[in-house]
């Protein structure tokens, strides 16, 4: 097998989740965890990195509890974290519709949707807490959509059979984030949170085995400083930008998590990547990011490609019998509404065969002609008008007259730093929340669950579980002269010095683009043994070249966006290799990870529960990463194979 790329270490286990009936575990854990008395809280300092849903809600809540919080973000305001871009909604098991929803059903759907690669205890807690999140956000004044009676509206999302998704038009993430942002700003005004914007975490400080601080760079002045504390929380989001082109914001990066990983934190399931089927395709080499179009478009649009390869006629000139409605053909029961991963892969297959449309043949048609004929243009406009406008703004094409072109794009990463039930990484004092951890979505995330997890971690889970760790604090006084602090800082200085002094001739972006192409080609929607091995070789070569040839202009003591990007891309290069190794070792297909070797006769993903029912937690190794397996047990939801035929 592929053991030439990694070593296997001791198994790892989550020691914090209590045993017993699943619905009592969270309550049990809250009771067994130690508390910190209010007078002592103000002697304890907690660093929170990131101000998205998880980071802002955690920082605000910890501040309210009386801890002294230092909160960091690289954006110019904490309100700009990428949670703001989430469109669809947030799930909660409120059962306001009386349609049979319950905490247990949300738990069940999430475990199943995650293709049985998540922890039951964590997912159940997420489902329990989901209802509190809605209460909390409403109390903050989040303007959720309402019905005429004044009560909250719900919709069904992502193929769920119940209506449990709360939403605020197509900007739910924005409204939830602004709620958390306002709660955070309130604590800033109250003096409990020191908020540092335009600061980027570049190193984790570990002293005597405990996470005790971070090294940050002030992105305006270039000043490098250390912030020391009793605990560190990373809420730094996902790493989809390893693909260069993704629906993530340009600044999203893995640096905080990767720096922690290099210092010993395990990185779990890095290969689990969610690829969203309905994004606007790339228009050329200049492309910097991809824009998501709401999944709801597939409710009325029909997906097709020309039967003839390389057919470049205007779509209206292609007669019906020369069109291949491939989703309807292959999945007659679900048709255009098959789950995200299946729709994405099917698009890749037809494009790889040469049927794709638009620039580079990387696109399929999403056609509303039938819907317009059936419902009338007005009705279609009422339902999708804003999405059509957005499409036209970006592509210059009118989707009422010409079918939209869509193509899958990287959207969310289920993997992340390994955490236990308390959201503590394997480094004592280092906690990880939101998309940055791996904990709740298994191998595939359901729609409207990302917002739920971010806020669950930040408002309700972490502030409760962190006290068990902080109860041992305050830890020994530290100052900047401690050798471990000095060493961490020096590592940052050296890295920056290297980039600025490297006599290179290639831009950072050119490396990032090249890495993205390798990742997309070999570690994207479909992965093979051969392709992944090739990718690992290519990434290693690219990494060598990066350190030889990267060119960073300017100096440290200024706003230097090239320098920021250089450090991020350096970390993406290492992460990319680990993702490929993880994908290579997992020879089964599950959720967002599709191995061509592991499919049913009909070309569907085939899980291998006998060999892979575990979390792959990777430990950093200079020569090769070390795999620690955490076995997954399913007491309540028995694994089954998905079928959408």
């Amino acid at each position, binding site marked *: 097998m592929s053991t030439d790329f990694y070593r296997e270490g001791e198994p790892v286990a989550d020691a914090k989740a209590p045993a017993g009936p699943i619905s009592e575990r969270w309550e049990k854990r809250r009771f067994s965890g130690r508390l910190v008395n209010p007078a002592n809280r103000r002697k304890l300092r907690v660093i929170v990195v990131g101000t998205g849903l998880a980071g802002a*809600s955690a920082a*605000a809540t910890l501040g309210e509890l009386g801890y002294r919080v230092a909160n960091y973000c690289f*954006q*110019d*305001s*904490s*309100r*700009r974290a*990428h949670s*703001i*871009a989430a469109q669809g909604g947030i799930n909660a098991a*409120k059962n*306001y519709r009386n349609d049979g929803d319950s905490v247990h059903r949300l738990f069940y759907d999430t475990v199943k949707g995650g293709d049985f690669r998540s922890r039951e205890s964590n997912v159940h807690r997420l489902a329990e807490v989901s209802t*509190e999140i809605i*209460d*909390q*956000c*409403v*109390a*903050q*004044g989040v*303007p959720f*959509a*309402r*019905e005429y*009676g*004044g*009560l*909250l509206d719900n919709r069904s999302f992502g193929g769920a059979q119940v209506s449990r998704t709360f939403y605020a*038009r197509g*900007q739910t993430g*924005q*409204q939830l984030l602004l709620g958390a942002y*306002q*709660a955070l*700003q*309130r604590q800033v005004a109250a003096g409990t949170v020191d*908020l540092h914007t335009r600061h980027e975490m570049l190193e984790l400080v570990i002293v005597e085995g405990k996470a005790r601080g971070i090294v940050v760079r002030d992105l*305006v002045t270039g000043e490098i400083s250390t912030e020391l504390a009793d605990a560190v929380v990373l809420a730094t989001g996902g790493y989809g930008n390893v693909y260069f082109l993704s629906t993530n*914001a*340009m*600044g999203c990066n893995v640096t905080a998590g990767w720096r922690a990983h290099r210092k010993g934190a395990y990185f779990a399931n890095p290969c689990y990547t969610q690829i969203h089927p309905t994004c606007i395709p790339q*228009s*050329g080499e*200049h492309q*910097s990011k991809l*824009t998501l179009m709401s999944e709801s478009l597939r409710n009325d649009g029909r997906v097709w490609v020309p039967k003839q390869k390389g057919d470049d006629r205007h779509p209206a000139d292609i007669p019906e019998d020369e069109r291949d409605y491939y989703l309807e053909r292959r999945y007659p029961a679900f048709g255009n509404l098959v789950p995200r991963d299946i729709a994405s892969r099917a698009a890749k297959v037809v494009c790889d065969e040469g049927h794709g449309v638009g620039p580079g043949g990387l696109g399929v048609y999403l056609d509303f002609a039938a819907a317009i004929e059936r419902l009338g243009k007005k009705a279609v406009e009422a339902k999708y008008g804003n999405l059509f406008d*957005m499409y036209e703004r*970006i*592509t*210059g094409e009118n989707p009422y007259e010409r079918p939209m072109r869509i193509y899958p794009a990287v959207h969310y990463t289920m993997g992340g730093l390994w955490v236990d039930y308390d959201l503590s990484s394997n480094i004592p004092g280092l906690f990880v929340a939101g998309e940055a951890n791996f904990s709740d979505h298994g191998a595939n995330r359901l729609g409207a669950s990302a917002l739920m997890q971010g806020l669950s971690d930040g408002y*309700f889970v972490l502030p409760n579980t962190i006290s068990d760790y902080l109860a041992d604090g305050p830890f020994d006084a530290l100052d900047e002269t401690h050798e471990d602090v000095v060493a961490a800082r020096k590592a940052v200085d050296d890295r920056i010095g290297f980039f600025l002094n490297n006599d290179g001739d290639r*831009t950072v*972006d050119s490396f990032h683009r090249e890495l993205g192409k390798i990742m997309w080609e070999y570690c994207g929607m479909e992965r093979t043994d051969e392709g992944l091995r090739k990718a690992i070789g290519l990434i290693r070569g690219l990494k060598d070249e990066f350190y030889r040839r990267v*060119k960073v*202009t*300017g100096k440290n003591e200024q*706003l230097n*966006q*090239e320098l920021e990007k250089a450090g991020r891309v350096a970390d993406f290069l290492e992460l990319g290799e680990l993702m490929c190794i993880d994908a290579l070792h997992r020879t089964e297909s599950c959720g967002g990870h599709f191995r061509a070797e592991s499919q049913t006769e009909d070309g569907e993903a085939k899980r291998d529960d006998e060999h892979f029912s575990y979390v792959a937690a990777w430990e950093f190794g200079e020569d090769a990463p070390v795999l620690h397996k955490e076995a997954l047990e399913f007491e309540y939801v028995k694994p089954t194979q998905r079928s959408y035929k």
Partner: protein
Amino acid sequence: MKLSLRIWRQSDAQAEGKMVSYEIDEVSEDASFLEMLDVLNERLIGEGEDPVAFDHDCREGICGACSLVIDGQPHGPQAATTTCQLHMRKFKDGDSIDIEPWRAGAFPVIKDLVVDRSAFDRIIQAGGYISAPTGTAPDAHAVPIPKQDADAAFSAAACIGCGACVAACPNGSGMLFMGAKVTHLSLMPQGQPERATRVLGMVAAHDEAGFGGCTNTGECAAACPKEIGLDVIGKLNRDFRKAAIRAA
């Protein structure tokens, strides 16, 4: 397409800045405005020059980071569109385009096209929230809210905090930004207890940050990429008057 750009270059907050001309060729009309600048920057780095610094992040019109004044108009010529969503097909081959940072006393330039908008955060800190500590909330259905109020609150809350309103205002006023938040929160029943202290606090923070007063010219609303209207300023004025009279 081929374009002549004039871009504001300023190496840091203290430095003198000036408009610098660049010629750029082979720009795809499918590129976004920021992607056009990416292409320029790639070239500048290749030539050993300092690339043009500008704020941007999500590039899908929602984070509010991008902030360019294009030909004298915040976010450029297309209505209801942020800079990142503006595409080059809106320009013609051979056009010359001026690119400047937001100009306002409360938004000092940090470098090139990047400005410091932390004054907006300080306005929010002065009261732009509802005090609802985590865990204290009643059931979400405890208080019904009329749909039209919830919808109006949403429309105001759609503000992305980009600062185009300030950049467009001849007085460098932040009233549209502030009015949007005051309107959002004062339309919610949960926002009532702090309604008076909120507006007084926010207005004081707004003035202290150095934003100018409103002269109701409407330039802010015309520049707003989220089409927030002057009614939020009216509501802010009304709430302020009531609160000030009650406080007196």
